[in-house]
């Protein structure tokens, strides 16, 4: 039942990421799939998160002009990192969790945009300033908003 719920949630997140968020104005948009993977990793562990990351990453990549496997690779690394922190996240404060989220999001964006940089022939510094950091900030902001809006928080540990 739990895995069915997660499947439905990720189908919803995929639809949201591919169809709904893409019509938002501006260049940046939050990566809700990445947030889903991090939350899954921290709640259920690395293995289910990495398998889910592979599947949703492939579908997400199919809709972009980047390399297929680029999002998948980033999401798998993010899932692995989130799975690592599963054991300690229950004992962490909000600020420490925020730092963990930020770290994982930056690592994912760095991997994704670095792979795209090879294709688009961009400078790595420009990429960091103009793409990685704004995208990471936007995703983190969305994570913060979602955390406060969801009754028990993103990780289900909010009191």
């Amino acid at each position: 039942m739990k895995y069915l719920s997660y499947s439905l949630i990720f189908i919803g997140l995929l639809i949201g990421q591919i169809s709904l968020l893409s019509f938002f104005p501006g260049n940046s948009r939050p990566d809700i799939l990445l947030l889903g993977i991090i939350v899954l990793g921290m709640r259920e562990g690395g293995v289910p998160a990495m398998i889910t990351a592979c599947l949703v990453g492939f579908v997400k990549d199919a809709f972009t002009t980047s390399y297929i496997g680029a999002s998948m690779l980033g999401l798998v690394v993010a899932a692995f990192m989130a799975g690592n922190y599963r054991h300690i996240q229950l004992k962490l404060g909000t600020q420490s969790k925020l730092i963990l989220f930020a770290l994982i999001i930056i690592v994912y964006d760095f991997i994704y945009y670095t792979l795209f940089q090879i294709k688009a022939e961009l400078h790595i510094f420009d990429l960091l300033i103009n793409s990685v950091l704004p995208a990471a900030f936007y995703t983190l902001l969305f994570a913060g908003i979602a955390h406060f809006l969801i009754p028990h928080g993103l990780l289900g540990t909010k009191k």
Partner: protein
Amino acid sequence: MPKELKVIDIQYLSVTRSEYFTFLICLVVSLCLIFLNDNPQINNVRAAVVDSWAHTLQTISKYRSMAEMRDELSRLRQRTSYLLLENSNLRNAALENYRLREMLKFKESSAYKLIAASVIARDQDQLTRSVTIDAGSADGVAKGDPVILPGGIVGKILRAGKSTSIVQLISDHSFRVACKIQRSRVNGIFQHRDSRTSLLTQVPKNADVRVGDVVVTSGYSHVFPAEVLVARVIATNSDAPSLFQIIEVEPFVDITTIEDVFIVKRMEIKSAEEK
């Protein structure tokens, strides 16, 4: 030391063998896909995945349109005058009629075979820019087909599924097209720079380029037919320490508002140019 930092003990950061094993497998699969990116079988799977989502995306597109219409209706209801509402509807109809007539006229006057399609999804990342359209290989669309509007080029087909296709837009960072200045016939390469402007690169410093010049496709790319409108020159700079000028151009087509597009059949390009 804050209480929360005490619990970050290295003993908790233990990773099980199954996690390492899964990570390794997933990593290998991802890297294999990246290195096999141009493999036709991978592209077929990719097209099938996009196709499998086509129905969902079309449904969402319809619901979104319905939601937009509902918003529009509630906004109009606030107006007190029925005549004002009717007038507004008539104007909308007239504009739509004009737009459709222009598109029909363009389709009939074009020397190429054109396939009409509507945008059903957009990918608007920092660097990647693409749209998904509701025409695929079943409609005759193939990878590499140019996508245009009466105003100019929009992009090219990156992947064609059975009933949907992904269009790489001219605002995508990896999009390039061979162009020339219509007036002076100077050649260059069009590429996107940021959200507002694009560049015409590889133009020598002594080339005759002026602000306001029209940039058209050169036809050297074998993808786009020659003389299709691309952009207008908005600034030139010959002072940069380089062999080439920095030419800023503004595309004719506003990519952010496109709803309907035409796909130019590549097979027809050759025969039309021969004519």
